[in-house]
C-alpha cells in the first residue's frame, strides 16, 4: 500500500488568498454604490473597463513570464487592483487614461517586480500617481455631485469613457481643492458659498467615506486584516488636523472631521494601506506605518502641491516599510526573559 507522505500540519484553516481578495472586492460594494448614487455611472464604468484591462494585462504578463494562467488569475489580485484604481480615478475618465493607469499598475508595479507578493509598492497607487503626474488636467477634474450639477446617464458614461471627444462632463472643484485654494474666507463662509461642501466634508464624499468605513469594518470583522494600520492612520490624521485646526480661520487646515470624511481618507485607510504586500509586517510595524501615513496625508493636503495625498503618502511609506520592519521586530517568546537574566 503506497501511503501519501506529507509534512505537518495536515489540517488547514478555511482562509485562502482568493477568499481574502473576494472579501476585499465585496467590501468595496457599498462605497461604489454611494459613489454611483452621487456622481453617476462614471465610477462603475471605470471599474468595469479597468477590470477587463487588468485581467488582459495580467494574462499577458503571465504568458510572457511563462506562468500558468488559471492558477494565478484565480487569486483575484489583479481584479482588486483594477477595482481600487477604478474607484480612485475621477468618474468619466477616458479609456486611454484608465489603460495607461492599469498598465502601470499591473505591468510596472507588479510584474516587473516579480508578481504578487514581491511588489514593494501598492500597484493601484503606482498607477494613480503615474497618471496624476502625467495627466494632471484629466486627473483633477471630478464630476459635480447630484443636486449640484446634472447627472449623466449610463449611456453618457459609456460615451465619456470610449469617445471622450464627444462628451463634456460637468466638473467641479472638489472640497479639498476649494479648501486648498481658499485664503480669504472663514471656514463657515467657505462652506456656505460652495454648494458642494455639503454637511461636513462634501456632498457625496461624506457618504462615500462612511460607506467605505462600513466595508472596512466588515473586513476587520472577517479578519482579513488587523486594525493596526487603518486605525493608526485615522487617529494620526485626526490628531494632526485637530492640532492645526484653529477654529475655522481662513488659514485653517480644515477640521478633523473634514479630513476624516473627505477625499480618499477612508478608502485609503481600509483598502489601500491595508494592502499587506507593500506594508510593514508586524503589528507594531503596522501601527507606525499607518500613523506616518496619516501624518503625511495631512501635511501633503495642507502644505503640498496636490490636493489629495493618500496615494503619495502610501507610496512614500512603501519605501519606508522595510526600515520600519527592521526596527519593529516583535519580541519572540523567551527573549525578554533572557535579557532580564543578564541584567
Amino acid at each position, binding site marked *: *500500500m503506497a*501511503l*501519501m*507522505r*506529507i*509534512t*505537518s*500540519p*495536515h*489540517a*488547514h*484553516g478555511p*482562509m*485562502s*488568498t482568493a*477568499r*481574502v481578495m473576494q472579501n476585499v472586492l465585496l467590501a468595496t460594494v457599498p462605497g461604489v454604490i454611494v459613489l454611483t448614487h452621487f456622481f453617476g455611472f462614471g465610477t462603475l464604468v471605470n471599474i468595469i473597463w479597468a477590470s477587463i484591462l487588468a485581467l488582459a494585462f495580467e494574462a499577458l504578463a503571465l504568458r510572457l513570464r511563462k506562468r500558468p494562467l488559471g*492558477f494565478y488569475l484565480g*487569486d483575484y*489580485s489583479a481584479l482588486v487592483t483594477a477595482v481600487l484604481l477604478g474607484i480612485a480615478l475621477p468618474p468619466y475618465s477616458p479609456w486611454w487614461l484608465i489603460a495607461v493607469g492599469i498598465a502601470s499598475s499591473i505591468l510596472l508595479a507588479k510584474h516587473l517586480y516579480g*508578481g*504578487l*507578493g*514581491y511588489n514593494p509598492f501598492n500597484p493601484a497607487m503606482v498607477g494613480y500617481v503615474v497618471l496624476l503626474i502625467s495627466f494632471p488636467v484629466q486627473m483633477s477634474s471630478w464630476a459635480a455631485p447630484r443636486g449640484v450639477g446634472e447627472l449623466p446617464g449610463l449611456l453618457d458614461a459609456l460615451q465619456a469613457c470610449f469617445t471622450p471627444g464627444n462628451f463634456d462632463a460637468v466638473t467641479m472643484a472638489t472640497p479639498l481643492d476649494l479648501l486648498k485654494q481658499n485664503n480669504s474666507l472663514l471656514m463657515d463662509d467657505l462652506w456656505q458659498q460652495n454648494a458642494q461642501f455639503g454637511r461636513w466634508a462634501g456632498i457625496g464624499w461624506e457618504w462615500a467615506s462612511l460607506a467605505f468605513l462600513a466595508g472596512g469594518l466588515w473586513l476587520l470583522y472577517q*479578519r*482579513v*486584516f*488587523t486594525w493596526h494600520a487603518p486605525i493608526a492612520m485615522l487617529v494620526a490624521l485626526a490628531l494632526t488636523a485637530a492640532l492645526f485646526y484653529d477654529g475655522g480661520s481662513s488659514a485653517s487646515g480644515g477640521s478633523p472631521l473634514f479630513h476624516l470624511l473627505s477625499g480618499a481618507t477612508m478608502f485609503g485607510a481600509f483598502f489601500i494601506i491595508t494592502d*499587506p*504586500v507593500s*506594508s510593514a*509586517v*508586524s*503589528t507594531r510595524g*503596522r501601527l507606525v506605518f499607518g500613523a506616518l501615513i496619516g501624518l503625511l496625508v495631512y501635511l501633503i493636503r495642507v502644505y503640498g502641491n496636490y490636493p489629495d495625498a493618500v496615494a503619495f503618502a502610501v507610496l512614500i511609506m512603501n519605501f519606508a516599510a522595510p526600515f520600519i*520592519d527592521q526596527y519593529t*521586530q*516583535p*519580541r*519572540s*517568546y*523567551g*527573549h*525578554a*526573559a*533572557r535579557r532580564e*537574566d543578564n541584567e
Partner: protein
Amino acid sequence: MRQVYDFHGGIHPPENKHQSIAAPIADAGIPEELVLPLAQHIGAPAIPVVEIGQKVLKGQLIAEPAGFVSVPLHAPTSGTVSAIEDRQIAHPSGHSARCVVIATDGKDEWIDHSGLADYKSVDRSELLTIIRNAGIAGMGGAGFPTAVKLSVKAEVGIETLILNGTECEPYITADDILMRERAEQIIEGAQIIAHLVQPDEILIGVEDNKPEGIAALQTAAEGTGVEIVVFPTKYPSGGEKQLIEILTGKQVPSGGLPSAVGVVCQNIGSAVAVRDAVIDGRPLISRITTVTGEGVNDPRNYEVLLGSSLAYLLEQADYQTNKNKRLIMGGPMMGFTVPDAHVPIVKTTNCVLAPAETELPAPPPAQACIRCGMCAEACPASLLPQQLFWFSQGKEFEKAEQHNLFDCIECGACSFVCPSNIPLVQYYRAAKAEVVQLRKDAEKSEHSRIRFEARQTRLEREDAEKEAKRAARKKAAEEKARLAAEQGSTEEDPIQAAIERAKAKKAAQAEGSNSAESAGEKLEKAVVTTRKRLDTATAKLTAAKEDGSDLVDALQTGVDKTRAKLEAAEKALREHQHAATTKEQPTEEAKPIDAAQVAIKKAMAARVADADKSPEEKAREALQKLEARLQKSEARLAQGKAAGEEEKIITALESTVERLREKVAQAQSQANETEVS
C-alpha cells in the same frame, strides 16, 4: 480561582475529539509479533541484552540504557526473541532502525516484579533509579527520558510542578480518557514526582474542552494539594513553553530549560507510568493510543502493547483501507505521516490518525505570500513567520537566525492560517537542518584549522629549538676553543670548572624533580578541566534532548569523546602518581656531589703538590706543559684545516697556537734564566 495567563497567537482548529472519546479504553490484545525499536526516546539507543531464540517473560529487560540520557526496554509480553535487526520504524525521515523482535506466545507470563509499599521511605536516588529502570520516556510526544528530567538538583529550587493534561492537538483523546478513567493514578503519579522534585505547588493544566476529565481529576485530587487549573482551549496551549506561560505567566528563556523559571513539566501519561513503576513495579510496556479518523469505523482509545504494528491496531478499529491514503502518527497539526502501516507503536505514539481524503484534504499548491501577517498573528512564539519563510527560501540563514528561527516550535499554526497555503513549517525544518549542518561543517573546519595551526606552531617551535641547540653547540665549541687557548694562563680553572659543573648538575637534578612535580600537576589539571568539559557537555546534551534539538547526535558523540579523554587523563595521572611514589627515594642523588668533591679535592691536592716544587722545576714543568699543549694545538689546527672547519674556529686555533708559541718562547727564556742563575 487561580489566575491564568494568555500566550501570544494561537489558533482554533476544528477539535474532532468527540469521535474517539465516546468509548472507554479497550485492550488491543496481543499481536503475534512485537517490534521494539531500541531508540524510542531522545538519547542513545538502548543496547540489547537478549539473544535471538531466547525466551523472555513479560516485563523482562531486553535492552539496557547506553548512558545517562537513555532508557531501557522491556518485553511487553512473554515470548521468544525472533530477531534483532533493522526494521522500518515510524520516524519523520522514514528510515529504518535496529529493533528487537519478539514472537509472542500468548501466555502473557509476568516476570517476578514488585513495587514499593511506601515510596516516601526510600532514598530519592533510589526512586529515580526505579523510574529509570522502568524505561519511562516522555509520553506526550518528544520522548525525553523522564528520570533525566526529574533529576533536577535540589539547589535549582523548583517552585512549580506542572502536569500537562492539555492535549491541544485536534483528534487526540488519549490524555482525556486517561483523566476520565485513571484520575487517581494521575494524582498518585503527581505526588510521587512531587516527592522527587519538592515543588511549592503541583498544578495539572487542562483545557476547558474536557469537562469530564476535569471533574474526575478534581474528585481524585481532593485533599491532596494537587490543583487542577482549567483554561480556555487554544492550540498550542499544550506546548510545554506555552503551558508554562499560561500557568505561571513566565517565559522559559530562549534556549533554556523550564527549570530556569523554577518549573518541571511532565505529561500526565508519564505520571501514570511513574506511578505504575513505583507502586506496582511495572515497567513501561504498553500505552494508551487514540485510533481515529474517518478511515476507521470504530475510533476509540486502546491500551496497546509497545511494538504492536499500526496495521494490527488499525485492524482492531475496523480499518477501511479504501477510504484512507495517509496514516498520521500524532495529531493533524504536528504528527507525521508513516511510510507503511507495519511500523510499530512506540512509547511516544499518542495517536494514529487515518483520515479520509475529504477529511484532511491534501494541501493545494502554494501561492505567493501576500504578507498578510496572519501567520505572525497566529505564531505562539511571537515570530514573524513570513520573514522566516522569506529568509529560509532565500537561504539567508543568518537573517533567519536573527529572526529567531530556532525558537520556532514547529506547531504549524502559521501554515494552518496561511491563505496562500504555503508549507511554512516545512521550510523552517529544512532551514534548521541546514543551519545545523552548516554549524557542524564550520565546527569541523574550525577544528581542523586549530589542529593545523597547532601543528604549524609545533613545527616552528621545533625548528627554533633545533636552531637554538645548534647555535648553543657552536657557541660551546667556540668557548671550548677559547678556553682551551687560555687554559694555560689560569691555574684555578679546573677546580672552578669542576665546582661549576657539579653545581650545574645539582641544579639540573633539582629542576628535574621540579619538573616531575609540575608534570603531575599538569596531569591533574588536565583531569579537572576535562571533567568540567564533560559536565558542560552533558548539561548541553540534556538541554538539547529536552528541546528535541537536532544537535543531539553531535552532542552525544562529543560527550562520549570527552568521557574517553577524561578516562585517559585519569589513567595517565594514576600512572604518574604511581611512578612518582616508586621513585620517592633517589639513591643516586648523593653520587654527583661526591664526584664533584672528588674533583675539587684532586685539584686542590695537585695545587698543594705544586707548591712544594722548586722554581726551576716549576718552570721546566710549565715549559713542558706548554710545549705539549702547543703540539696539541698545532695538531688540532692542522686537523681543523684539513677537515675544512669554519673560519672562525681556524682563526681561533691559529691565534691559540700563536700565543702558545709566544708563551713557550717566554718560558724557555725563563727556564734558561733560572738555569743560568
